[in-house]
């Protein structure tokens, strides 16, 4: 099993550009999450989804959008990239809420210049 797959691994964007970070999981998990990790810090939740067609905001949603059309995929869209969005982005999934740890993807390192 591949687990949680994120693409791309690295990306440099210019201010004002847009991009989509891809996330796919093959574990049939209902719950999926997007986190960002700034240098030397813990993770902060951007958006999450409890199933196909259902998404909700996390702690730091501004500047981002998500969709969940299938159980497997949970793309994160950055519109009008800003330097403050320079970070490492992690996608994660879990079977359910509360009783399970998360499975994390390998991360996308994004730099906005």
């Amino acid at each position: 099993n591949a687990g949680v797959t994120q693409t791309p691994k690295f990306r440099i964007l210019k201010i004002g550009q847009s991009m989509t970070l891809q996330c796919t999981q093959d574990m049939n998990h209902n719950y999926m999450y997007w986190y960002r990790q700034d240098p030397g810090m813990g993770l902060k939740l951007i958006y999450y989804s409890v199933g196909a067609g259902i998404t909700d905001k996390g702690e730091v949603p501004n500047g981002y959008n998500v969709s969940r059309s299938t159980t497997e995929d949970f793309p994160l869209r950055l519109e009008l990239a800003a330097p403050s969005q320079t970070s490492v982005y992690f996608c994660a999934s879990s079977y359910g809420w509360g009783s399970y740890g998360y499975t994390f993807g390998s991360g996308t390192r994004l730099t906005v210049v």
Partner: protein
Amino acid sequence: ELKVEQNPLFLSMQEGKNYTIYCNYSTTSDRLYWYRQDPGKSLESLFVLLSNGAVKQEGRLMASLDTKARLSTLHITAAVHDLSATYFCAVDTNNNDMRFGAGTRLTVKP
């Protein structure tokens, strides 16, 4: 708002020594998680603690949870170099979310 504080943030210890990392949180929660992150890598789940008094052990690491004190500890026994990593605790917010601590960067020296 739930706040999660870890200490110490940086820990340098010698091989063979014991040490404890602390994770305090500010509001009621029954679930706490410990993760390990190697430099430039993703997070790996270590422990899931689901109730007051829960204790879990894996190799040289042991985690415990005291929900009344809002405190979890990660105890390291006879540290070895391979344990060098950043360790995060994360607390369930009861709202489909985990709030992470800032992490403890552990370096084990020979």
